[in-house]
């Protein structure tokens, strides 16, 4: 089911007398979530992602705007009539009911014509349990299950009514690191198998990037960017998105465009046809090329000089090598450059010099922090 957010706004009135400004948790969201995809709502804490989720599921009423599931306007519908399944961050499994009773619970709420018989209910519950692979735990109580198993039960409970939209609130945040990897693949598999439009909220960019078909980056209630994970990573629209996505974080520098070159400090590091003036420069960790060999003719011919930094440390992870260095123009404390470990790196001494990969370098306006092309 396609989910359309039509100029959706949610304002929480201020309860603080000293600070009477209302909180705009969701500010004029206007986008369409395509059918049958896995969508990650991504942003730092307090950016309005959970509010958005609650608006979609109907636990909150929007201040302005509409929500449509396909052609149907569901803005005024209560949650139970929207056909949504919601998985809570703490799972909210009823502790006094067994796994089976928990999964049956939504079905038992159905009244009138649509109410399935006992056998149908049981069959549906079994099916949902098999889908999330907990069918052997049906008679346990939630407290007898591990965190990951509880998570699966919560998903099964949300899926048992075959919702049009499945919503997951921070589905992985209560799991340990190893289980997190496993569970996110699991969520992806369940989504692919059922084909249900699934929206999940997370503050962990890696989580969002790894399994989403589409990520929606938010900040302070304002939509920043929406797109495929790689797209958003490669073409961030502003400095916030560039900084928020990617581990290790992007390296930020004070730079200047002048005479067709981008300068960091006094070094012309790249050719650039951006408008002249001061800019923020963001360089992805993988955007550095070590200038350790003989001078690269092509670069020199273009008038670009290697970008020289003070070497601090070389960290080896086995898969790759991080070169940690500093430069006065750097906005953070360290510059982190990641190199493949497949060739021997000749890094030693006090200094290290890099050439830059142009498509890994982003320029941002000094005041608006929007991307400059």
């Amino acid at each position, binding site marked *: 089911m396609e989910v359309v957010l039509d100029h959706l706004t949610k304002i929480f009135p201020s309860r603080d007398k000293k600070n009477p400004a209302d909180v705009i948790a969701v500010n004029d969201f206007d986008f369409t979530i395509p059918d049958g995809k896995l969508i990650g709502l991504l942003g730092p804490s307090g950016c309005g992602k959970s509010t958005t989720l609650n608006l979609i599921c109907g636990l909150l009423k929007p201040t302005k705007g509409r929500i449509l599931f396909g052609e149907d306007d569901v803005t005024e519908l*209560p949650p139970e009539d929207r056909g949504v399944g919601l998985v809570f961050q703490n799972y909210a499994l*009823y502790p006094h009911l067994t796994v089976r009773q928990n999964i049956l619970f939504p079905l038992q*709420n159905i009244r009138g014509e649509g109410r399935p018989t006992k056998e149908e209910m049981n069959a549906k519950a079994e099916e949902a349990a098999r889908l999330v692979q907990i069918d052997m735990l049906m008679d346990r109580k939630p407290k007898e299950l591990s965190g990951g198993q509880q998570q699966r039960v919560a998903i099964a409970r949300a899926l048992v009514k075959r919702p049009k939209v499945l919503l997951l609130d921070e589905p992985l945040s209560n799991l340990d690191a190893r289980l997190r990897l496993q569970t996110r693949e699991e969520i992806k598999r369940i989504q692919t198998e059922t084909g249900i439009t699934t929206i999940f909220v997370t503050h962990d960019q890696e989580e969002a990037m790894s399994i989403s078909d589409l990520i929606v980056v938010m900040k302070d209630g304002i939509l920043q960017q929406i797109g495929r994970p790689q797209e958003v990573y490669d073409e961030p629209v502003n400095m916030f998105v560039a900084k928020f996505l990617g581990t290790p974080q992007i390296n930020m520098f004070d730079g200047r465009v002048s005479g067709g070159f981008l300068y960091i400090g006094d070094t012309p590091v790249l050719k650039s046809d951006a408008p002249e003036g001061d800019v923020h420069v963001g360089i992805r960790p993988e955007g550095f090329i070590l200038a350790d060999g003989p001078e690269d003719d092509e670069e020199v011919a273009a008038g670009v000089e290697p970008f020289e930094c003070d070497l601090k440390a070389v960290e080896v992870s086995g898969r790759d090598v991080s070169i940690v260095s500093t430069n006065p123009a750097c906005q953070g404390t360290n510059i982190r450059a990641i190199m493949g470990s497949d060739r021997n790196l000749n890094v030693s001494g006090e200094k290290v010099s890099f050439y830059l990969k142009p498509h890994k370098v982003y320029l941002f306006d000094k005041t608006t922090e929007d991307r400059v092309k």
Partner: protein
Amino acid sequence: MKNKLIELKSWLYLLPAVIFLGIFMVYPLIDVFVYSFEEGYNFASQSYFGTGFYNYSYVLHDPYFLQAVKNTFIIVIITVPLSTLIALFISVLLSSITKLRSLFQTVYFLPYVTNTLAVGLVFMILFKKTAYTDGMINLLINAFGGSSVDFIDGPYWAKMTVMCIYTIWVVMPFKILILTSALSSVNPDYYSAARVDGTRPWRIFYKITLPMISPMIFYLVITGFIGAFKAYSDEVALFGVDLNAAGMNTIVGYVYDMLYGDSGGYPSFASAAAIILFIIVLTITVINLMISNSDD
């Protein structure tokens, strides 16, 4: 060796509490038990005629005691379930309002901090009927076309009605306090989850809220039973000290009368009655605990 030393040390630390409890709790309990088998024990001379079950036999054949047992059981059976149910009802309503909630919470808690005897007086005035004036309740009854009833000095059922209303009123605040806090400690996510699943309010209440707060309800029922079995001061507050004459005595009242009342000076009978009360309360509590455990 070292473990033994640690164990010895722990007992040493426990000693003050053990001594205190031993002197003021365990010894008197044993003493009461012993008294209950000593016939005609006399405080002054510290003497008795013989030992045996005569005290129990006397108490169990005493019409005043049987009346007291009957009264106590009526009060227990009526007030404990009713007060718990009403308290639950009020707590649920309190939890579902936001405006004026703390005001109402304070109002409902007031009886708890009010003196029992003073409140008893208020109830007497509310329910009384004299040759000259009627209390407010009787005025109400008259207004609806009934005739006045003497609730304080009249027929048994009228007195019992006042007694039960009064008891419920007195125990309510504590129950409301416990239940409102139990209700507010239920994670609101459960309610959100239930709403998304399309659960009707009544089903949310008995499928989610009730099981979640059931430990607290059991706690209230058990302490309620114990408290109601030990009722005495409420009766005095309403009907005065001569409860046998009013026919409104309770088991604890009987024990007190046997010790100090008009018919006082019979510690052996008092002890026997106290032991009988103890056995009743113990039995009921064990049954309660068994029911609450079997639910798990």
